[in-house]
């Protein structure tokens, strides 16, 4: 008896969970509850079902290069803010800010989006200490380089050269910050 329980229970539970009763129950339950919160919660499992059900690749999965584009814009802003806060560093930092902006432009073209006109603000204003500012930029740039290296490995043949150049550019920025 205990053995049969072990064998049959998971199967039965699996079926009820996957098929008719559970979704029906929860939907009815949620409709009865009626609140905004409940509707919000209902949306998630339904979206999940659609993803599993439809073989359509079309439902807009975010472009794999999108994070790289966002990062380029954030980096551009970080360098520009640092250059504004430390005019002595501007000659060094401005070309790098421009490079990141150029990367964003090329990535946007490749992805097929228009680059956002308002750049995302990097977390926190630049430090008043130039050394700390440079250290912060180095840290961001290193993370950016690593992300671009990873993105290049999985990029398509036509995208890999641009992503590779961006990875290399970020590596040269680190060198320029030394």
């Amino acid at each position, binding site marked *: 008896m205990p053995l049969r329980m072990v064998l049959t229970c998971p199967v039965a539970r699996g079926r009820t969970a996957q098929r008719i009763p559970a979704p029906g129950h929860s939907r009815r339950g949620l409709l009865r509850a009626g609140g905004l919160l409940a509707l919000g919660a209902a949306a998630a499992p339904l979206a999940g079902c659609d993803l599993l059900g439809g073989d359509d690749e079309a439902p807009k999965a975010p472009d794999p290069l999108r994070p790289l584009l966002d990062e380029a814009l954030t980096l551009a802003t970080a360098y520009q803010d640092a250059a504004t806060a430390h005019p002595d560093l501007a000659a060094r930092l401005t070309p790098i800010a421009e490079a990141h902006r150029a990367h964003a432009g090329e990535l946007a073209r490749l992805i097929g989006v228009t680059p956002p006109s308002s750049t995302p603000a990097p977390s926190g204003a630049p430090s008043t200490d130039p050394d700390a500012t440079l250290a912060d930029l180095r840290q961001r740039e290193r993370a950016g380089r690593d992300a671009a290296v990873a993105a*290049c490995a999985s990029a398509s043949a036509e995208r890999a050269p641009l992503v590779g150049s961006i990875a*290399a*550019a970020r590596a*040269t920025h680190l*060198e*320029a910050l030394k």
Partner: protein
Amino acid sequence: MSERAAPPAPAEALAAALTAEYAAIYAYGPIGVRLSGAARTAARQAEAAHRRRRDALVLQLSTAGATVPPDRAGYALPFPITDRASALRLAVEVEERTAAHWRAALAATTGPDRDQALDALIDYSVRATRWRRTAGVDPVTVPFPGRPT
């Protein structure tokens, strides 16, 4: 359609990179002669990096049964090397040009071969930046290293 036509076969791209490595090694001969001190050491290290990749490519291509392009006795330099300034200018050029060949190889490769190509692109781009700094070129970076201009 265009995707099939655009990237060359991996062996073809690696053979092109090998030819670029031969030329780079050749160029560092006259470059090194015009440099001294830390710059000369940097030239020696750069040359060693190109030799390492040359050796790896020769081995890789012959192991794969691909055609290994032969080295030539000499390569045409884009401009005469007459002093330290022209030597540094050529060093920048050599690194950018070899970087460009490895960048092109990215499209033709996947997996470890692509990692190898990216590693070379990054290495030579950083060396080009260091040479610009030594030469007093400002800015020391370019927006798209290895991209044909």
